[in-house]
């Protein structure tokens, strides 16, 4: 802990203290009659307007990890890393219509989680349980990764200790976060998101205008990056990447972007922010306005090339002894900006970790409470008991994430998050398609889920990464030639890569359809549908809407 960057640390600490105060004050902001209800604690009273929803969703979807990992991927692999841009371009047009239906039916029936909807739609506690578990398992490593983003910043500021001491600042930051989330619920990240997003916009705009002019212009930056990426790496003997896509990774690029887009709003935390909005018009406006963040993310991705040109070397993590690629953006800011501005940039990333971590822990807690605790452990739980249970669960979830980062190699979380994306995509038929049709049989959906998850995991397990010598879970790009259906290789010899999640989803849909047809033939009971056709069109000003937060 020798070379502490004091000016950066002081500015970081001041801004961090500011959001801490905001977090605790949030419990009194726009307060409903009680916080002892999931509508209030878990969904902020279901009354957020357009601006708050915009900041909340922006803070939720574009996380600190995204902000460090996307440029890091561009830094190391080139054009492939830019998939984040098409991903966030296509997601809003795709999601607009289903999100409206989900909001309406949840508003009418009082659903808080995607699994609540599945439970109501198919009357199947098993299917709902599968969806809830998938959601929790996919979200947990995502929370842990926010810590990776926060830690990258802390280490760049000189807090790069080894062992438990090195993790102490992280622990303190997360304990504070855990307490104000416990107290204020979704209102805390909603309020803090304002600070986070404004800081991020300032930092990115400055970075994207100032840095290229300082480093010789975009043309020079792209040419330097092309040259550097084209140099064969010592580990594999092949070039690390290129500034354009190759014949083999174009399909991977498109399917990864599409798969990620389809997965994004299946994550429970995205849905939490959608359900917290006041009405359909709020959601529509947001689907139009959220791409402002995509623009920022795309520009941020280019910082990977800027870092190459500036000659940035990733820091070595003193706790693991390995070079941490995620530090390249913080190191770039540290070396190119004056220390006070770097402090603001670091605070932006650091606070950027808190907002999604809070929302994700709330979403996971809601899932636990509604679909496991109330369904299986305490069937007659009152709304107060639900809220109490969810608050406790949010603490457990966050402490669990810290423990995972401190006790296990962070690489473990990164692997898990990669897996999580593939897993959550497998809930698409049960959650998203079910918004439109009840054609799929509940047993078909269960069978599809099992096959999608099982095969997805098998494929991920079999992917090595020669660049860092990992044998398994080395990435999400499957060479078509290695695809095996019970030993049959339909694309034998092909080196073209595709996103594993996408392949698993297709298998999932095929199996779900086949089992559906069989189940219908055999006239197996398909559960009772609690929802009515008009539920999917309800809006905020309808008469006789269910009151919010009433016991």
């Amino acid at each position: 802990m020798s070379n502490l960057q004091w000016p950066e640390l002081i500015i970081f600490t001041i801004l961090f203290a500011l959001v801490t105060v905001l977090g605790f004050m949030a419990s009194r902001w726009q307060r409903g009659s009680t916080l002892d209800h999931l509508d209030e604690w878990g969904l902020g009273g279901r009354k957020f307007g357009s601006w708050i929803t915009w900041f909340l969703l922006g803070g939720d979807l574009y996380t600190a990890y995204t902000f460090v990992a996307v440029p890091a991927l561009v830094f190391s692999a080139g054009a492939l890393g830019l998939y984040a841009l098409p991903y966030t371009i296509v997601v809003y047009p795709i999601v607009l219509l289903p999100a409206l239906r989900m909001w309406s039916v949840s508003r009418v029936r009082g659903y808080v989680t995607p699994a609540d909807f599945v439970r109501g739609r198919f009357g199947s506690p098993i299917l709902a349980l599968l969806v809830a578990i998938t959601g929790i398992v996919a979200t947990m490593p995502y929370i842990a990764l926010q810590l990776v983003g926060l830690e990258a910043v802390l280490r760049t500021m000189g807090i790069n200790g080894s062992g438990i001491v090195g993790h102490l600042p992280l622990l303190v930051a997360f304990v504070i976060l855990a307490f104000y989330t416990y107290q204020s619920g979704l209102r805390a990240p909603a309020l803090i998101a304002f600070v986070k997003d404004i800081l991020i916009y300032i930092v990115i705009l400055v970075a994207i205008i100032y840095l290229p002019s300082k480093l010789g212009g975009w043309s020079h930056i792209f040419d330097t990056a092309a040259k550097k990426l084209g140099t064969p790496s010592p580990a594999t003997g092949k070039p690390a990447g290129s500034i354009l896509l190759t014949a083999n990774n174009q399909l991977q690029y498109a399917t990864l972007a599409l798969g990620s887009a389809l997965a994004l709003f299946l994550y429970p935390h995205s849905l939490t922010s959608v359900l917290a909005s006041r009405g359909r018009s709020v959601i529509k406006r947001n689907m139009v306005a959220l791409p402002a963040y995509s623009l920022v993310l795309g520009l941020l991705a280019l910082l990977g090339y800027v870092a190459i040109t500036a000659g940035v070397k990733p820091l070595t993590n003193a706790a693991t002894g390995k070079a941490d690629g995620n530090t390249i953006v913080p190191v770039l800011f540290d070396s190119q900006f004056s220390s006070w501005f770097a402090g603001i940039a670091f605070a932006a990333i650091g606070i950027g970790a808190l907002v999604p971590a809070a929302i994700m822990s709330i979403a996971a807690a809601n899932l636990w409470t509604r679909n496991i605790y109330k369904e299986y452990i305490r069937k007659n739980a009152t709304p107060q008991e639900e809220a109490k249970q969810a608050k406790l669960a949010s603490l457990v979830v966050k402490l669990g994430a810290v423990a995972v980062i401190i006790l296990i190699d962070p690489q473990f979380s990164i692997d898990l998050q990669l897996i999580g994306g593939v897993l959550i995509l497998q809930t698409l038929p049960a959650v998203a398609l079910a918004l439109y049709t009840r054609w799929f049989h509940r047993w078909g959906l269960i069978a599809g889920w099992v096959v999608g998850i099982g095969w997805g995991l098998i494929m991920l397990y079999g992917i090595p990464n020669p660049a860092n010598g990992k044998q398994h879970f080395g990435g999400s790009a499957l060479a078509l030639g290695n695809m095996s259906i019970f030993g049959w290789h339909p694309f034998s010899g092909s080196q073209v890569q595709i996103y594993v999640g996408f392949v698993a989803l297709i298998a999932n849909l095929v199996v779900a359809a086949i089992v559906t047809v069989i189940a219908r033939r055999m006239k197996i009971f398909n559960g009772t549908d609690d929802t009515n056709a008009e539920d999917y069109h309800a809006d905020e000003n309808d008469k006789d809407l269910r009151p919010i937060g009433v016991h």
Partner: protein
Amino acid sequence: MSTEKHDGKVRGLQFSPWNLLLIVPLLVLVTPLFNMDGPRLFGMPFFYWFQFLFVAIGVLSTWIVYMMTRDKPTVDAPDKLSVEDLDEGDAR
């Protein structure tokens, strides 16, 4: 395709041809269209600025769909787009 019954509530699938515009942004997934270096814009290869352009195309498509498919004349007060706007939440 909408079916309105006497209680004025909407049921069934609401389909507007305008919704088809939402397909346009998906063109950004067809990588052979833009996977090339030139022509450059401000020194940025075509691959990059084309995709940035598509952010705008995505916004435009979604916005047109939003404007064209608004349900009935909205009866509620105009959204003032302010934090204060939320205060009325309790009164509703």
